[in-house]
């Protein structure tokens, strides 16, 4: 007991009261923090707050007015993502352990903080009366405070006593984290939050009732949590079985997952199968044969002689059929042949490279056909506002998709800008400079008003998809400049060393230059990621309903019977918390990754 106390007192002395000035600074800061804390608690508990505005509208926050009958699609998407997450965590489990002691001492610290917080919480807070005068009202009565304090204090004491025993038991770190998540899910059953209900006549029942958080979603969340555990154990089983292919399969699945889930949320396609039969299948087959022929003769000398003419020929064909009324699939595939002709000689110079490239070609044509057929058909999911997503799901779609599309695009732009080929360099520099010198909001208006004009005929994308396209360009340009900084930090010696061992340019870039360049710019990349996550709220300007707009404009106008008019502050605080939690988790995770990758730094 003395030992622990001594240690803590020494810590206080060394860190907070090491000199007169630091003691003074500690006291002043402490006083200010206390004031802020009491103010915030007073704000939250004030009778002027209408927290039911947040809790009652959870569905609005999550998926906005995504068609009710289709909301299982949203649940299923989360489920699939969690399934993959669990398998990944299980399969890539490093077996890192945390001791029972550190778990307990963590809990002890948290509960000490809670006890202190309850002790110093304000007794009353100021409210404004109808006539404009201010008065104080009680928010926590003495009996309430004691009622809360007793269980917390008891738990604190238990944890404190447990810290004194040296329990050698070790737990798998990942399991502990998933277990903690369980508390969140479990609390949905237990913790009661203020909400509103209605009587038979449809009138709001006063006073506000306390019901379990998210009454209708406790069961889905619990099922999802079970899915996470199950997936984790499947992953661990696969790890034990040493199934090597998963090492490549899992990252690829993660890359493709958002695409798949997005199409899952976006479309309930109504497909005309005779068009598939007449256009898509023959089209893909023809282009499979073309691709096969190109790869078959890629290293043939005669072919190489005519390759440039062929490339230009296909480019001209692409340009000339661009405005013809033929399925867009054919135009896209013709252009893809140009790309194939460009990369074929570099990659298909071995049997293995040829096989891989043929496989990529087959899959790419299929995916292209699948996506174009899907996007060309009508969306079956209709909402009154025309935008199919809103709230958190929109914020997430914009953030994740924005990154998925813009990051590779940024890498390509950065490489292009530093390329030796003048044409490539000029085009990439041009794109970057044009995109960066126009404000994001202008691009959003461009997406909402003008982009349809530039699209090929017959293809009309949803506003969200158009926003994603301009976001890809906009954040891509910023990523490109960050990555370029990383590329410039690579010394000439690295290029020379790669050349000297006989690597070709593609290997040099992908094995030597990019891994180092990306590592060097992780901090800036993360800050751009966080920026784009928050910037996604700008889409409110062009009529999309993101989290912020729902909280600041939609809910505060809900009138009878729920009557949440003017509940802006409550909602804004909730949204601030939402953004903070995710940005914080994100930056902490990245710090870990940075540390892990930084191992090989110079």
């Amino acid at each position, binding site marked *: 007991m003395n030992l622990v106390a001594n240690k803590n007192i020494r810590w206080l002395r060394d860190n907070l009261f090491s000199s007169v000035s630091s003691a003074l600074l500690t006291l002043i800061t402490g006083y200010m923090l206390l004031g802020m804390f009491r103010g915030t608690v007073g704000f939250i508990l004030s009778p002027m707050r209408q927290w039911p505005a947040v809790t009652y509208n959870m569905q609005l926050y999550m998926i906005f007015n995504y068609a009710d009958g289709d909301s299982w699609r949203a649940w299923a998407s989360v489920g699939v993502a969690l399934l993959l997450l669990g398998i990944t965590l299980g399969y890539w489990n490093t077996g890192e352990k945390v001791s029972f002691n550190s778990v307990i001492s963590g809990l002890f610290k948290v509960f000490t903080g809670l006890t202190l917080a309850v002790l110093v919480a304000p007794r009353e807070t100021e409210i404004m009366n109808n006539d404009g005068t201010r008065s104080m009202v009680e928010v926590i009565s003495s009996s309430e405070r004691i009622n809360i304090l007793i269980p917390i204090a008891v738990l604190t004491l238990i944890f404190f006593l447990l810290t004194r025993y040296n329990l050698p038991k070790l737990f798998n770190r990942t399991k502990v984290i998933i277990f903690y998540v369980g508390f969140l899910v479990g609390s949905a059953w237990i913790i009661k939050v203020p909400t509103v209900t209605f009587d038979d006549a449809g009138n709001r029942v006063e006073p506000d009732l306390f019901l379990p958080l998210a009454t209708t979603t406790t069961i889905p969340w619990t099922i999802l949590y079970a899915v996470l555990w199950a997936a984790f154990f499947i992953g661990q089983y696969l790890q034990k079985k040493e199934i090597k292919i998963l090492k490549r399969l899992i990252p690829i699945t993660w890359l493709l997952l958002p695409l798949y889930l997005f199409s899952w949320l976006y479309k309930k396609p109504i497909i005309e199968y005779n068009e598939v039969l007449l256009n898509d299948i023959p089209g893909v087959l023809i282009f499979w044969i073309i691709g096969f022929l190109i790869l078959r003769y890629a290293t043939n000398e005669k072919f190489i002689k005519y390759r440039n003419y062929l490339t230009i020929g296909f480019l001209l064909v692409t340009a000339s059929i661009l405005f013809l009324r033929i399925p867009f699939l054919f135009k896209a595939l013709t252009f893809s042949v140009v790309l194939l002709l460009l990369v074929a000689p570099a990659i298909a110079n*071995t049997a*293995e490279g040829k096989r891989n490239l043929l496989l990529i070609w087959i899959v790419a044509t299929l995916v292209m056909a699948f996506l174009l057929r899907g996007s060309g058909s009508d969306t079956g999911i209709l909402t009154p506002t025309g935008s199919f997503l809103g709230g958190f799901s929109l914020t997430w779609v914009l953030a994740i998709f924005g990154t998925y599309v813009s990051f590779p695009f940024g890498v390509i732009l950065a490489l292009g800008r530093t390329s030796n080929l003048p044409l490539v360099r000029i085009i990439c520099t041009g794109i970057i400079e044009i995109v960066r010198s126009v404000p994001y909001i202008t691009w959003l208006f461009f997406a909402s008003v003008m982009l349809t004009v530039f699209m090929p005929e017959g293809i009309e994308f949803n506003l969200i998809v158009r926003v994603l396209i301009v976001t890809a360009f906009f954040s891509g340009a910023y990523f490109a400049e960050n990555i370029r900084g990383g590329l410039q930090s690579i*010394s000439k*010696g*690295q290029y*020379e*060393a*790669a*050349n*000297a*061992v*006989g*690597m*070709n340019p593609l*290997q040099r870039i992908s*094995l*030597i230059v990019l*891994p*180092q360049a990306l*590592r060097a710019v992780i901090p800036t990349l993360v800050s751009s990621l966080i920026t784009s996550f928050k910037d996604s709220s700008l889409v409110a300007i062009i009529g999309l309903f993101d989290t912020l707009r729902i909280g600041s404009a939609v809910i505060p106008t809900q009138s009878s019977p729920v009557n949440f008019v003017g509940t802006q502050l409550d909602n804004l605080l909730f949204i601030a918390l939402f953004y903070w939690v995710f940005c914080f988790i994100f930056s902490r995770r990245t710090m870990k990754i940075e540390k892990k990758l930084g*191992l*090989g*730094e*110079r």
Partner: protein
Amino acid sequence: MSIIVTKNVKKWFGDFQALDGISMEIKEKEVVVICGPSGSGKSTFIRCINRLEQHQEGDIIVDGIELTNDLKNIDAIRSEVGMVFQSFNLFPHLTVMQNITLAPIWVRKKTRTEAEEKAMELLERVGIPEQADKFPGQLSGGQQQRVAIARALAMEPKIMLFDEPTSALDPEMIKEVLDVMKELAQSGMTMIVVTHEMGFAKEVCDRVMFFDEGKLVEENNPEDFFNNPKSDRTKLFLSQIL
């Protein structure tokens, strides 16, 4: 049989002429030391041999392949010629083992196990098998340079180029690198070494070449080179360096 032949090689950096008509032949299994004052074009010359620098006039023929702009020839020559740099140029984001196996796996298309066996063999040869899983940043300069030699050898080159391999090292580390190079020379590798280590030249090499102002001023066997230099420039250089 000459493995490297150069004829009247010339190179300019802007207005500055770095190489002024270098003609030479190097036979298989020969160890050649190139020395000379700084700025004399010796590094530029060996960097021309594997096309890290491009010569503007003259011919360079390595193992029967002429160096032209043809990418295929350049790749073919680079996989025949290993190079060790003054500043090591190891890949800092990869472990020692990965540094050595990267090129055999990707360029030579070896399997991973095959490449790792070979890499372990080479690490033992250069005397640091226990460092295989460390990153270059965790090694001393001498160890890093030995890894760099192992990395070049992993490609099983016919020729090894050394561009001032010991200039960036502390005196006590120089010996460990030179020992590896000596062992390599005795094993019958064709080597061109740009160095100021005259001890190495006297002891190991078959021929010494002296460069000055982009010209090959003198070439001789080491004994005659150090004892009876022909040109005045060589005499002056030797008097300053020895």
